[in-house]
């Protein structure tokens, strides 16, 4: 479904992503792990088109999207849920969701918005409330809901559990599993290694912009010593956002 080959991203003198090869098969949840500064966010920015890669290829469902605009990528079915729950704070919940449907012209947006409200009853209750009045967890649900309105086949998430309460982290990972069962492939960038490996089928570990490990999630989870060495030794990040 998504095939990334030999991808390079250079900002000025920083070589943030170094010849990364990565693929997501249809129906998979793939996680990308790594310590701060490992190049995870740069990788996602290149995948969604905010930065032009200096080399390599991004192919989605057989289409070469390497030099395509972010809009073209959204239109072809891959969306990014950015880090830090970046919702439109001056808008209502409903208006945020409408923005998610920005590229839709099929006239069925209303039905899909209804489906989002069924999935997130909290959001339905606060439909016309200012998005800035939502709690952190609800804002994350809104950010995910907004991405879903675009009818993606691949959702990329950048550290969605960051700063959420343990209860919402549980709900978030439950939701990712649910979406996956509904047929959406997921590329999940996380610092919460344990949870990410639980929900994912395969994983990549990045260090200093390079893929240093690539295996099934189960194998990565067993190989904790190696994983932790690359993730910044021992300090398990799931306590960070409690």
């Amino acid at each position, binding site marked *: 479904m998504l095939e990334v080959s030999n991808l390079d991203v250079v900002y000025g003198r920083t070589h943030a992503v170094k010849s990364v090869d990565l693929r997501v098969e249809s129906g998979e949840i793939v996680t990308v792990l790594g310590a701060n500064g490992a190049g995870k966010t740069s990788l996602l920015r290149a995948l*969604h088109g*905010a930065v032009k890669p200096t080399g390599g290829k991004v192919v989605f469902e057989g289409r070469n999207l390497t030099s395509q*605009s*972010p*809009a073209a990528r*959204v*239109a072809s079915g891959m*969306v*990014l849920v*950015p880090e830090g729950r*970046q*919702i*439109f*704070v*001056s*808008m*209502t919940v409903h*208006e945020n969701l*409408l*923005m*998610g449907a*920005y*590229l839709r012209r099929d006239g069925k947006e209303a039905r899909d918005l209804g489906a989002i409200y069924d999935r997130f009853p909290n959001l339905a*209750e*606060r*439909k*016309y*409330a*200012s998005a800035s*009045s939502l*709690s952190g967890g609800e804002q994350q649900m809104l950010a995910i809901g*907004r991405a879903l309105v*675009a009818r993606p086949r691949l959702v990329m998430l950048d550290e969605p559990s960051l700063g959420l309460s343990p209860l919402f982290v549980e709900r978030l990972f439950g939701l990712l599993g649910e979406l996956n069962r509904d047929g959406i492939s997921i590329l999940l960038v996380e610092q919460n290694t344990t949870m990410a490996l639980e929900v994912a089928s395969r994983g990549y570990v990045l260090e200093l912009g390079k893929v240093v490990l690539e295996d099934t999630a189960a194998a990565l989870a067993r190989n904790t010593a190696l994983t932790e060495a690359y993730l910044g030794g021992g300090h398990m990040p799931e306590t960070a956002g409690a």
Partner: protein
Amino acid sequence: MSGYLAGIIAILSINIIFAYGIFLAVASGQLNLGGVGFQAVGAYAAGLLSASLGLPVALTLLAGAVVAGLVGVALAFPILRTRGVYLVLATFAFAEVVAGIILNTDALGGAMGMSVPGYVEWQIPMIGAILVALLVFYLMATRFGLTLRAIHDDEDVSELMGVSIRNVKVAAFGLGAALAGLSGAFYAHNFGYIEAQSFNALVSIYVLLYVLLGGTQTAWGPLVGAAFFTLLPEVLREVLPALKDFFITLFGGVPDGSRPDESWRFVILGVLAVGFMAIRPEGLVTRTMVERLTFRRPSSRFKEVTE
């Protein structure tokens, strides 16, 4: 209707149209401090077509808007590469260039100015202002309006949704320039005479002030801002003598009945402007205020409730 009142309605209508032009740019996060440049382009386009070709007013008004809009779109592509204070300076410089060109072009009357035939009274500018206000209210209720707000909020996230930021910004800037040009065309036909000196930097600053102090979140902002700051100096003209007498008595003096200096009106205007910025930094009319007044969204009353 007295000539004085007719004059005020005409100026008010022109200012409202002008303010909506700047509002469209500001609503998409672009501070346009060169508004008067577009107004001048519209005024001279209408004036020239009217004086030299004798076109009817309906056509010259349209031409003023179209020419200024095209200049706006042409300028938007290079100018939108700049951001923040550089965008402000670039738009400001544009207005200075326009004034320079007018002063040095004999066909436009140079420093002498230019008479514009085809006088329109207050009624047509007023109808124009109402139509422009309705247009902008409508635009802000569409997907385009929502997109402007999204870009104003966060350009990066808007891009994630698939918004082509540059196209939307160019459209907003160009349409705003067209409205500024339309206000200039109305000005030309209402005053009957245009000269480069009337299109000075102060006018750009005033109109931006109308928009920022009126509020940039809803289409009510420019309407309220332009009305308030156009009418206030006129109201002050009436109440200033009384105000002066009041302050003299307050400090134990005896009013001598002389008229206060006119510049006091602008001192009061300035103080009010600073005061508004301090008390209502989002502008006089905010989105929350409109929602509260219209009662259309009952559930927003519960927005303070958290779990």
